[in-house]
């Protein structure tokens, strides 16, 4: 994240209320934090609001920051939590069902669909310039409550418990949403990366 910085010196500066330290922390970590906020709230203005609110919370809480974690991880966590609060205050549109994107089964429990292997493994697909944009586009197509959990767990790498706390869900509900979100994403990606047309 950004240029190498002397985090202990930066932290000492923040605790001493050194103006230069505040500016350094904003300029050093801001681009990455803004990217995280954009991913979650998907609106430039709201993402900037999230980053501003998160920095102000961090500045107020600097005395409680023990320094055991990296400043970058600490700020990341605050931005994620701030973005989630923003998401909660939004009036969500009625969400589309995820069911059509989940695998379907016959009465005897077998899959309806016969699956095929993809045209190439993920590692190879990731070497192609367009792959990540395709994946992001499909992530955006997921129903919001599944998309949020998938981003928080698989991309922002929060733990199940952290996501559960942040979203007011049980850990089991987080696991279920993550699994269904991945299944739905897999269905969408299959059409982009399939080797053969399946029945």
């Amino acid at each position: 994240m950004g240029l190498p910085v002397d985090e202990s010196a930066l932290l000492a500066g923040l605790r001493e209320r050194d103006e230069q330290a505040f500016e350094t922390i904003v300029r050093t970590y801001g681009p990455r934090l803004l990217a995280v906020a954009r991913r979650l709230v998907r609106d430039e203005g709201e993402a900037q609001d999230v980053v501003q609110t998160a920095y102000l919370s961090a500045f107020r809480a600097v005395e409680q920051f023990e320094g055991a974690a990296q400043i970058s991880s600490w700020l990341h966590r605050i931005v994620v939590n701030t973005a989630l609060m923003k998401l909660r205050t939004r009036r969500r549109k009625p969400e589309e069902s995820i069911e059509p994107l989940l695998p379907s089964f016959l009465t005897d429990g077998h899959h309806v669909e016969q699956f095929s292997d993809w045209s190439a493994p993920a590692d190879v697909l990731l070497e192609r310039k367009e792959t990540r944009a395709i994946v992001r586009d499909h992530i955006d197509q997921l129903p919001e409550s599944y998309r949020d959990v998938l981003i928080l767990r698989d991309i922002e790498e929060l733990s199940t418990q952290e996501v559960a706390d942040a979203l007011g869900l049980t850990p089991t509900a987080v696991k279920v949403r993550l699994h269904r979100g991945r299944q739905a994403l897999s269905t969408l990606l299959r059409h982009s990366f399939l080797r053969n047309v399946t029945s």
Partner: protein
Amino acid sequence: MTCREFSDFIGDYLTGDLPATVRAGFEHHLDLCPNCRRYLRSYEETVKLGRHAFDDQDALLPPEVPEELVTAILAARLR
């Protein structure tokens, strides 16, 4: 174990959270069912692609935050 049950257990299987008896049943089904093997592979590839979906954007982050945002944050701190 049916394909439906297998499908439900994939997440916990990949994180090592399945109880031993369920895991044995899962792996037995995996041996027997080529369709579920392909499904599991596509699920794993999906997770991998998802995890790396934003790498290029993160690598190309603009070196600076918008100047007006820096100013707004620093000004708000003093209020």
